[in-house]
């Protein structure tokens, strides 16, 4: 519940970022105001370019949540289709899909994402592609295992005996019965994706300045860590808080959706 409330707050920030702060304050550089401690004008102080950290965090919410949700949605779609097909048909199709994904899984995800961004060039779109590709294998496995559990059920046989085609069976009978584990892992994955995106941005491969993103804010404020630790502390804590809340939400959803725990 705590997770849900805090997340609702962050979603609110992301949606109404325009109303809450002026985008000019986010990118406006002001060398006279560099590295200010917190004050009434700048609640979280200012960064090395004199930009208001509070405004940047709020706009960063929009960027980070967008990255998290889009990449998970894309990974869910691709992984969902692959996992459902692999689990339903089994045999050779299953082996081909799963072994290909296993080989992708062998590469550490951050390294894979780095390689993709490095070859495509940095930027928001390529960052999304990179972190999506590196999470598809995990998703496919989860969906496949959920499908395998449902596929042996008698109501699938019954649906076939009523004349349903494979596509109907997968879409109408299998996927709805697998939604529990899929939703739970997707929720948790959003948090992971935000962290992944932040790490890539931290490494300079993600969102490009002056767009505010929590990871790149961390990276930019690294050199001022000793003079103004708050600069590192604020984006770091925000990332941690959002990721924690998403995990709590995922746990809560699992408890709510898993009939065995009820």
């Amino acid at each position, binding site marked *: 519940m705590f997770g849900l409330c805090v997340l609702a707050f962050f979603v609110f920030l992301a949606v109404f970022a325009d109303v809450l702060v002026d985008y000019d304050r986010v990118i406006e550089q002001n060398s006279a105001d560099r590295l200010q401690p917190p004050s009434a004008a700048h609640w979280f102080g200012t960064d090395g370019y004199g930009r208001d950290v509070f405004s940047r965090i709020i706009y960063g919410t929009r960027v980070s949540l967008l990255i998290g949700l889009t990449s998970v949605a894309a990974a869910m779609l691709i992984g969902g289709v692959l996992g459902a097909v692999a689990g339903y048909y089994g045999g050779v199709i299953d082996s081909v899909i799963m072994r290909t994904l296993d080989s992708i899984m062998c590469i550490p995800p951050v390294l894979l994402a780095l390689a993709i961004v490095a070859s495509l060039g940095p930027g928001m779109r390529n960052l999304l592609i990179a972190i999506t590709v590196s999470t598809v294998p995990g998703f496919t496995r989860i969906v496949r295992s959920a499908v395998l559990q449902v596929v042996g059920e*008698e109501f699938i*046989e019954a649906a076939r005996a009523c004349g349903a085609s494979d596509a109907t069976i997968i879409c109408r009978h299998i996927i709805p019965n697998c939604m529990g584990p899929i939703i739970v892992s997707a929720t948790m994955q959003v948090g992971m994706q935000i962290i992944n995106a932040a790490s890539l941005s931290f490494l300079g491969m993600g969102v490009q300045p002056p767009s505010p993103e929590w990871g790149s804010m961390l990276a930019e404020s690294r050199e001022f860590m000793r003079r103004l630790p708050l600069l590192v502390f604020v984006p770091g804590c925000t990332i941690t808080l959002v990721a924690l809340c998403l995990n709590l939400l995922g746990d809560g959803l699992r408890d709510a959706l898993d009939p065995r725990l009820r």
Partner: protein
Amino acid sequence: METVLEVENLYVEYRTEEELVRAVNGISFEVLKGENLGLVGETGAGKTTTALTIMGLLPPEVSVVRQGRVLFKHVDLITQSESYLRSVRGNGIGMVFSDPMTSLNPVLTVGEQIAEVLHLHYQEMSSEDVEDRVNEILSLVGIPPQRKNEYPHQFSGGMRQRVVIAMAIVCNPELLIADEPTTALDVTIQAQILDMIEELRRKMSMSMILISHDLGVIAETCEKVAVMYAGEIVEYGSVEHIYESDVHHPYTSGLFGSIPDITKETRRLNPIPGMMPDPTNLPSGCKFHPRCPECIEICRKVAPETVDIDGHQISCHLFAEV
């Protein structure tokens, strides 16, 4: 009378890497329009395999129809394409599974599940017509139509079986295959469900194949009975032939002998000695000979011919000279 289903000399095998399971070994029977055929036999006699073969629902990786034809309205289903079979399933032939607890999808309402069958076979049907038909079929199986928006877990076992039957007959199939429809239900509900199936069958002039290991259930509902043993039909005839005649295949006699008599005190049941033969290693000659109390020399070597006594067919050497 018109023949709805004709099974001719059907052989079905399951092949795995280690072994070959001969599940159905040359069975033939036919079902006339409006007729009710009972298939009886022990577990593993090939009853369900027969049903799945008719539906074309055998697991494709391991099963092979080695020989034989399944003619539904004079079309051989064995050779037809998957899309043709799909149009027959649910529409021409309906199937009721044994366990109503698992044969309904838990995340769809019962109304949606019945409507789905209609959508599959009548794409052009308007949603109002589908709605009307769902209401009609629900009241036909004895469920108040206003319960159609409830989920399967809100129904009891007997009510769920009614829903399963509604799904199977909503498209007015010519043939209904009921694979042990009452095994998972308690005895009072069993009687209700059987009465209902029988009433619906008459009303809709459907043919039916009732699969059961319960001789009582078969006696009550069927007109023709086929007794299966180790993938073969050992005895076939009208319900009077099977239940009232004195001539029987020794296996059928054994089955009746194992039912306790209600008028006598019985301390122990009289089972048929031995076990169903291993379908990967069937005995030579008559498949029942290792358990048969009347086994003679020829039974061990030669498979018996089917003897026809006024439509009462028995596959046993004992009747060869009759």
